């Protein structure tokens, strides 16, 4: 049997969630419309812009290119959960200090992607950071301030480790 609606159970930002979702509903529509977690944004809705980036089972994905039905049993983390966890509070502060946003539409996606980069804890050159972040569009800043913020945070974390 193939289904028009599916009953799913998943963890979102640490909380157990159960819902009945239409087969065609993608993850970000589910998060925004059913759970009212509006931090994940929909820009292009076909996998180009990165504004919808969320973490599913430990890795960053395009939330518009995963169906809610596919996330049955998954562990989903959105910008709301990431902020609450304080995992990237240093990066968020540096974003403010460096003015790494103007309208802010791309910022949640930028932070979700950068969180994965920072978690790798590698020493990365500026152009490597740029390449890692190349799947996230920003139409305001021209990217320099964003890359600055990530680079500064990465360096500060390494500095802290050394001391």
């Amino acid at each position: 049997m193939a289904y028009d609606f599916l009953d799913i159970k998943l963890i979102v930002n640490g909380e157990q969630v159960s819902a009945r979702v239409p087969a065609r509903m993608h993850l970000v529509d589910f998060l925004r419309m059913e759970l009212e977690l509006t931090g994940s944004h929909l820009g292009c809705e076909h996998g180009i812009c990165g504004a919808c980036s969320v973490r599913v089972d430990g890795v960053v994905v395009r939330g518009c290119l995963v169906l809610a039905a596919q996330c049955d049993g998954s562990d989903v983390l959105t910008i709301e959960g990431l902020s609450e966890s304080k995992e990237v509070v240093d990066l968020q502060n540096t974003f403010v200090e460096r003015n790494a946003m103007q309208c802010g539409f791309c910022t949640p996606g930028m932070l979700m992607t950068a969180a994965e980069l920072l978690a790798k804890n590698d020493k990365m050159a500026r152009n490597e950071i740029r390449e890692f972040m190349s799947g996230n569009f920003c139409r305001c800043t021209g990217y320099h301030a964003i890359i600055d913020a990530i680079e500064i945070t990465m360096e500060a974390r390494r500095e802290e480790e050394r001391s």
Partner: protein
Amino acid sequence: MKAAKFKYIRPSSLDEAINLLSDFGEEARILAGGQSLLPTLNMRLSQPKVLIDINRLDELQGISHEGKHIRIGALTRHVDIAESDLITENIPLISEAIEYVAHVAVRNRGTFGGSVALADPAAEMPACTLALQGTLVVEGPNGRRQIRADDFFHDLYETARAPEEILVEVQLPIRRSGESFAFMELSRRKGDYAMAGLACKATFQDNRFLSVRLVYFGTELKPTLGENVMSQLEGREWSETLAEKVIASLEDDLDPVDNLQGSAAMKLHLQKVLTKRTLAEVVQRLGNV
């Protein structure tokens, strides 16, 4: 945009998935990583009635060493290929090319088998599979069969896989001593669709190519062998002059298509530039083999 309505089903075995595909026929589409399929559904370029989600079929997972080849399960994600020591050590062309496949969030989800089975003309993995003379294993109601990469890619998104068959694995031959590889691609933004690209495998002795395989992508309707260029290079004394002369005949091998990534004339020019760079690079690497 939102996808049109479809039904969803998640089979728990490969047999069940094949039965479903036979039952629904052309109305169904296999959902693997979904990184190409879901954009086409969201943009309503395609409106299948049923999606058969194979993501939880463990039998399609994994990378393993089997005799003279490396087996890549169809559901292996691009990120796992990028991080695999087996691939780095044995299939250097794939390690080099995987860096060009989309962006991190897409690589975390997209699959090797999905990319090869879809056969997008601008995709890296189909071109590499053809350059490496890999073997594709498909399974349908009548069992398994193997298809050589040379026989697999037919036309724009058309392959030798029958509608009721599922690609289960790809076998890529392990690098042999004396072989060298090079991969180059041009795109407007790193990770975006290729404007032009080239995958090369070669063997070289006494300043001559014993064999050379050039697969062009991003400009044709399918990954395409540069047969004229290849045959003119093989056995001849290598020089920059030979390269210049041979590259002129690329016009007999390629017939680029205009699209959003560029005009036909520009794409042919870019492929000539890439051919020159790739041959120089592979010759240099062969010196170090």
